[in-house]
């Protein structure tokens, strides 16, 4: 029975993933499918297309050789340097100096890797921090160790330049076609005004490279057809056994009673394209920096 369910589930997912917009589902099937999620299938589809799954969870992942990330050697180097040079003031867990929690990526002024490197080199005389004369590889190592969250097996994502990232967000990246930041842009995709306050660099990179794997299930695209033949498309905001709430393509809040629907579908793949092949590693790092700088109104 269990195997049977899983098989049907995969079939359903395949229909959704390969022909989003064409498949049709009874409302009862949907709940079962949501429970499962379709990420593994998506990952497989990606590897068929020759894209490596670079975006393992930060928690379980190992150091990467992706150009957007620092290497395990960098992190190792940084770890040794940190213990010798930095831990005295910043503490073993990186939070001994007020206003900075290095392990959690919270800094008083810095956002980008460049900012961090500058602070290491120049110090912050006002706050009593001296500058350190280090080799470029050693600076890279320190930044990597911080970006990895002090975890030797962690993922250390490169964080580029905020201003350049904003340029990419609003220009080449095409992000503002769907996303809204600080009152600018449409509401059809999730608002990103405070995304930097709730996501790590690793999570942001993962969203950019493989949007589907990082999509919150609640945000899945919905297509519904009412009994009188009206088609409604949008992003799901909330759902229960009998009703579903969404924001439609005209940015209206819509609440639907499932019993009034003839068709109801959820797409398991994100409508957002990956930047893996459209942006260079440096551009991706810049985009991560910009997103990381978005901390919301407060």
């Amino acid at each position: 029975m269990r195997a049977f369910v899983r098989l049907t589930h995969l079939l359903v997912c395949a229909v959704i993933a390969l022909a989003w917009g064409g498949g049709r589902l009874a409302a009862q099937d949907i709940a079962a499918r949501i429970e499962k999620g379709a990420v593994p299938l998506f990952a497989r589809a990606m590897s068929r297309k020759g894209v490596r799954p670079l975006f393992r969870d930060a928690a379980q992942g190992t150091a990467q050789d992706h150009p957007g990330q620092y290497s395990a050697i960098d992190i190792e180097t940084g770890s040794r340097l940190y213990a010798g040079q930095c831990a005295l003031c910043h503490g073993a867990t990186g939070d001994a100096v007020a206003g900075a929690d290095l392990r959690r990526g919270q800094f008083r002024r810095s956002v980008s890797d460049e900012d961090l490197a500058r602070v290491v080199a120049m110090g912050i005389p006002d706050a009593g921090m001296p500058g350190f004369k280090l080799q470029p590889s050693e600076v890279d190592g320190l930044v990597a160790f911080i970006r990895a969250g002090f975890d030797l097996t962690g993922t250390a994502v490169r964080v580029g330049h905020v201003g350049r990232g904003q340029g990419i967000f609003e220009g080449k990246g095409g992000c503002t076609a769907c996303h809204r930041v600080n009152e600018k842009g449409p509401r059809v995709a999730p608002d990103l005004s405070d995304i930097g306050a709730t996501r790590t660099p690793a999570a942001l990179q993962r969203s950019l490279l493989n949007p589907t794997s990082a999509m919150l299930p609640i945000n899945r695209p919905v297509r519904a057809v009412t009994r009188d033949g009206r088609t409604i498309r949008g992003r799901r905001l909330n759902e229960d056994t009998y009703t579903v709430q969404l924001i439609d393509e005209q940015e209206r809040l819509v609440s639907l009673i499932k019993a009034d629907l003839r068709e109801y579908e959820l797409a398991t793949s994100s409508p957002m394209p990956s930047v893996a092949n459209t942006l260079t590693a440096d551009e991706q790092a810049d985009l991560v920096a910009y997103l990381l700088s978005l901390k919301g109104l407060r």
Partner: protein
Amino acid sequence: MKTFTRCTLPLVVLLASASYQLHAQVSYDRLLRAASEPRNWLIYSGTYASQRYSLLNQITPANAARLEQKWMFQNQVFGAWQSNPLVVDGIMYVTERPNDVLALDAKTGRVFWMYRYTPSPDARVCCGANNRGVAILGDTLFMGTLDAHLIAIDATTGRPRWNIALADVKLAYSITLAPLVVKDKVIVGVGGGEFGIRGFIAALDARTGKEAWRFYTIPGPGEPGHDTWKGDAWKSGGGSVWVTGSFDPDLNLTYWGVGNPAPDWNPDQRPGDNLYSDSVVALDADTGKLKWHFQFTPNDAYDYDSVQIPVLVDMNWRGAAAKLMLWANRNGYFYALDRVTGRFLSGTPFVKVNWASHLDERGRPVQTPQPAGSPTWPGNQGGTNWYPPSYSPRTQLFYFSAWENYATIYRKETSEFQPGRNFSGGGFTVLTPVPGAPGVGIGRRTPINNWTDEVGHGAVIAVDPQSGERKWKFDQFDVTDSGILTTASDLLFTGGREGYFYSLDARTGTLLWKASLGGQIVTAPITYEVEGKQFVSVIAGHALVTFALRDQE
């Protein structure tokens, strides 16, 4: 240039609507005509006149017995829930304490989004972390916060647009009322009368949050009314504003009730009339300039905040058409004022009153302070309080919740003012049936009514504004802090601390229907319509409950 603008504008609008269909936009024009779209509830008290009267008439005295619960929404946090929801084109916006905003489907009660603001831990309020709701203009919601900020929120996404601090939270300023939008401005007042603030009403530009004007409810040196204070008492004079005002577009005046002077119970510390405490102020909506004021309780010793809703009524008065303001005050008198000039027209006690013998021809009370240790009627919570009243143009009656046979023994002490700290000037005990019996608190912290009707009870009172006399009353065993809603089918909806939600015949006070909701009703009901069905919503305890007629078989 003028011609150019005129012909390109429609084109621009057309292009814009091609890419983005406009959201539900609540223009100022819609707010002005809120009464004519009764399917929505766009303003705290329903309309700018604050009558809390709806033209909806699907639910009638004949079919009210067919009301049934359609949905319920449970509060996400603990504590009394005093919020007044707005309904805009099928979407309900409601706040919960301390400063959450929720957008719900008004038909099913399911949630679209939730915005959470965490006020500063320095926020101090006398009487609970309350918030009474949001205001709307365009597609922006406005919420005042416990730390005296005003926040603009995108009504579609629940995202904050701007966030402005209006006063120093460390001095115990707060905002608990629902703002009032007038034209392009958002008007709010501040709480903190128990902490010796200097109260004010402020208007902010709805688009930017930039402050347009500020009216201090306690006048400073050189301002008219300052001579009603001695020495530095004005600096900590209170005069909080914690209930939403009204607006008369023809007169361009916005009316606001002002709270108690500080310290609350020791008038000897602040000799003089203490303007504009316990007053209604009429302000120019564009400039905030004071047009007139009327003080209900000069040099108040009883905490008789005049924070009731100013109810604006046009009716014949002594044979001539008049623009009136009707006001059942916490001090136990029902007033009719001329809202053009502020002139006192009539004042009649609606409950037992012994703090004053009568009102003089200008409406000023002739005060009769009771000897120390003796009871004063009405008691500290007043003959009525902040909960919204209603006026029905059909019955021409004014309805409100009152506390009957309720008295307090006041005690005055000298309090030293310390910024941000309690500044009460004494205290009070509720009069008990047997002298010396254990005191009874005014809150209700358990479902047991240890107060009983021996210490006072609640009633809905229908007053004829012409005579000030009761037309009918509907008694409750417990007291009530419930507001009132009336409709064009002559129904009246209200509740009380016992948790019953009532529908009464507005002409007679006859009970037509009730539901036991099991939680205190400490706010006013609203009504709206979705897909041709009339709904009535009320908050009881921690649940927002919505009723409509049972579908016909």
